[in-house]
């Protein structure tokens, strides 16, 4: 019985095993190639500092991607939220007000995004493209017309947040646990997955499709707003380039973590965790090893392709008909 159950277990959990095997492979490979320096105290702290921003956004994006949504505005929204936070804090408001302002801006962006998508039946990626242009445009306009750099005048408290290991670990654990619970144990997560599998069937089963999408985007908005503060705590400044490419980093991290970008019942919160760590360790390890910059993108591409290829070999029975 037990002999039969091992192959069955592997077959049943193929995707989960692939995502963890990928992470393990990256960790082992770079630990060996760096003579253990990858796991040094200094580098673990480096990885955690880089992880907190990407992970926070990725958790939010799991809610969006699980119902088949797609967002490419995260980087621009981070820039806009960070800019608003800087102006709020520099005006003398307490840090908490600055954080709330950043979250409010981010949530507003995601609400506009989902409302446009819901009202006009637009593909989510198109509405997020519009939000990306507007948010990036606002930041670029402000940066280009501002006589001075848009930077925090007093970096004290925020800088501590960005460099304090206890705070960073607490945030990672908190975001991960809350995200996991909401996604796997509440209606929001379950309904999101149902919509991702088949929106019509979900609707006919009593799932409020538009409402679920709205809440999912709101959660993503809150987390992207929080990520903008975490990002700001690392740079203390906003430019026209702030958050540039972050949306792609998140998508790549989620795919590396085994997330199916068309969502559905196979969506897992662990994709955010595993994918973010894999992505950060991969970037960190390539620099640590001293890989020639000309081949860095190629190596990343090959690893990405390999993971996508393995995940694509999903048994047909697991995919729900649409």
């Amino acid at each position, binding site marked *: 019985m037990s002999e039969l159950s091992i192959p069955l277990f592997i077959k049943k959990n193929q995707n989960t095993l692939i995502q963890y095997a990928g992470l393990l492979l990256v960790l082992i490979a770079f630990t060996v190639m760096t003579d253990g320096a990858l796991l040094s105290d200094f580098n673990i702290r480096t990885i955690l500092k880089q992880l907190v921003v990407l992970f926070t956004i990725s958790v939010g994006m799991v809610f969006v991607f699980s119902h088949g949504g797609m967002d490419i505005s995260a980087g621009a929204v981070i820039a806009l939220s960070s800019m608003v936070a800087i102006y709020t804090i520099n005006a003398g408001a307490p840090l908490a007000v600055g954080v709330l302002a950043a979250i409010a801006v981010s949530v507003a962006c995601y609400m506009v995004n989902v409302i446009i998508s819901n009202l006009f039946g637009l593909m989510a990626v198109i509405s997020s493209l519009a939000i990306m242009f507007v948010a990036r445009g606002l930041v670029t306009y402000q940066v280009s017309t501002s006589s001075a750099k848009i930077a925090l005048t007093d970096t004290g408290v925020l800088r501590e947040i960005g460099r304090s290991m206890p705070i960073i670990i607490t945030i990672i654990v908190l975001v991960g646990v809350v995200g996991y619970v909401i996604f796997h144990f509440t209606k929001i997560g379950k309904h999101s997955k149902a919509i991702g599998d088949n929106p019509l069937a979900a609707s006919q089963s009593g799932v409020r499709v538009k409402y679920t999408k709205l809440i999912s985007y709101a959660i993503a908005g809150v987390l992207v707003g929080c990520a903008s503060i975490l990002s700001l705590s690392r740079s203390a400044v906003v430019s026209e380039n702030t958050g540039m490419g972050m949306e792609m980093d998140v998508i790549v991290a989620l795919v590396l973590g085994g997330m199916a970008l068309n969502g559905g019942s196979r969506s897992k919160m662990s994709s955010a965790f595993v994918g973010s760590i894999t992505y950060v360790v991969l970037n960190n390890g390539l620099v640590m090893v001293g890989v020639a910059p000309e081949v860095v993108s190629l190596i990343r591409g090959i690893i990405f392709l*390999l993971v996508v290829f393995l995940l694509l070999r999903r048994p047909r029975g697991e995919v729900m008909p649409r």
Partner: protein
Amino acid sequence: MKQKKWMFNLLAFILLAGVVLAGCSGEKDSGSSSEQKDFTIGVMLYNYTDIQGQQIKEYSAYLEQHFNVKFNFATVGSSEEDHISGLENLLASGVDAVISGYDTALEQSVSLAEEAGVYYSVTLGEVDEAITSDYFVGGIKQFGEDPQQLGAKYAKQAYAAGVKHIGITSFPEFAFVDAPAIIKGFTDEIKNLDTAGEITVYPTEYHSFAPENAVDAVTKIISNYPEVDAIFGLGSGMDFVYPAILNSTKPDIRLLALGYNDSVTAGMENGSIIMAGTNNYGELVANSFAQLYDRLNGKAYSDWQQNGYVNYVTFTTVEEIEDFKNYVIPKDKSNGAVTAEELKQTMLSFNDRATWESLQKLTNRTLAEIKAERN
């Protein structure tokens, strides 16, 4: 069955390619580590594929042959988060100093370097002098000591070429902080030279960072001022503005460009390019490296200033372009802009009487001066 076989082959190919690549990089690493270099300097640039990135790598390789140093190159994105992550990764790799191409998130970057006890420099631009640290060796003015003089140099060439109606295009001021000074130097010099009042310089058209943005700027100039006969292109003059002119309704507009690529020679031969220019990559790296290397050896110039300067190379003839290739970016860097022996004379690690000013003088040599030194 066929599909399964195809998929298996694809997977095998990907794995094989990965193993081969990993093997290549491994060989490279083991080779360099056996040289037992004393210092490692990290370099952060957007890319190493354009001429600037390639030349910086080549000059760094030349320095590795003549100093006990090894370079670790990292590609960074343009965002603050990418820059800081790139810096953190380099610090974690154990570098002793960092040459950053840019002043992105400067305060936080310097602070991170200071915490790690690593020296930090900015090589492709001037830095804010309010940001100080014992571990910060400053930045470099890439357009010479006074960018206005560079603008005046272009103005003299425009005047000599006889153009009368000049448009200007540039990246926005917030991204190209030297642009206002260069433009002012240009317009002031045109006023000085044009005593008869025959030359008109139109207001600057600012554009963003994509080629199509430069096309829009050129189109706007042609629409507003149909008589325009020359454009001074400050924002990627050769890569963006030159193709925009050639594809416009007035391809006979002549160009004064801040920029260089392989089209310059042909453009000068047919008269469509009046003047072009580019960074002196060797001088830039030499300036930053000399200061970092001295600091790593516990030496600092008594006359040190936060912002050094290097000469910006300009060309007005095909011969000058050939000189640039032969004396600034030759394959053999011992014939290039700054040789190791010349550099050692300006470094405290090798010469007790060296000064910061002597380093600036060495790295501010013009193309003609470098050529004269080599002959």
